[in-house]
């Protein structure tokens, strides 16, 4: 990804589903964590599968280090309808409906409000 030198602001990486589709699970996780560890907010158009989310948590944990990286904040819209969509997607051979996902460094991003249709986050500069 093009390296933009950090100026006085917050960089947001908006990553299309198309771009992520071409990557293996661990590559996706690397793209996310590399961005977040540089202080960026990463927004995925289509989110991750449950298995990838599980690995994201695991890899995040292995990279946490005191005074350097505290982990991530991650938000997606809660799935309404529960198993209905789950069953449908399982039948279609997919584990998860595609959902916009916001990921950022835990010490810089704070969720103010979230419901089925809206996610409000506060991003601080340092």
């Amino acid at each position: 990804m093009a390296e933009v030198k950090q100026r006085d602001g917050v960089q947001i990486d908006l990553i299309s589903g198309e771009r992520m589709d071409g990557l293996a699970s661990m590559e996706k996780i690397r793209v996310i964590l590399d961005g977040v560890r540089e202080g960026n907010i990463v927004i995925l158009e289509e989110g991750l599968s449950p298995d990838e989310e599980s690995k994201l948590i695991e890899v995040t944990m292995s990279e946490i280090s005191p005074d350097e990286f505290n982990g991530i904040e991650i938000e997606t819209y809660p799935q309404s309808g529960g198993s209905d969509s789950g069953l449908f997607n399982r039948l279609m051979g997919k584990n998860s409906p595609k959902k916009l996902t916001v990921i950022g460094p835990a010490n810089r991003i704070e969720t103010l409000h979230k419901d089925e249709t809206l996610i409000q986050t506060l991003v601080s500069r340092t």
Partner: protein
Amino acid sequence: MGLLTNLRSSISRAASTLFSDEEPKRIGIYGPPNAGKTTLSNRIVRDWTEHGDVVGPESHIPHETRRARRKENIEIERDGKTVTIDVVDTPGVTTKVDYTEFLEHDIEKDEAVRRSREATEGVAEAMHWLREDVDGVIYVLDSSTDPFTQVNTMLIGIIESQELPVLILANKIDLEESSVQRIRNAFPQHETIPLSALEGDNMDEVYDKIAEYFG
């Protein structure tokens, strides 16, 4: 020839029923930090084993459990039948660990850093167990807190995608702010059982459901 084949198949059938009877289901106790997972695990062990030594320490400090711990061969009796399970108490799952939060609990910096390191390893381990090593999940939530969190949504999604049987427990119903309905609304696709692991309230129904789901 025919006799030998018959014999073989009947032996393998006998072996497979033997195995399915004897191998206890491994039930992972999952949920966010401080939900009461260890308190529940300890109660199950005390109620159904003779020595009843505890699974691990319970504490109001988050990340008290920092290693997944297994207690084997717990025999739960329901309606004259015995259900044998292994209980795996896991560290509370989170996406962030900040050692400075331990400092607020009067823990020295060195110890706080050590605890946070152990906590991160423990959560990674718990995720690994979930993907590879458990046959069913008891998901424990503190019913006095908001269940609509990202960690809960993700974990339930991960459990569903593995197609593991899951029982949701609404713990801490002894607290005034407890709301079981809020949990039912958050996860309408699953059955939610209220309880107080601390006081021992409604444990009969919990054991009924454990036998029904994991027996």
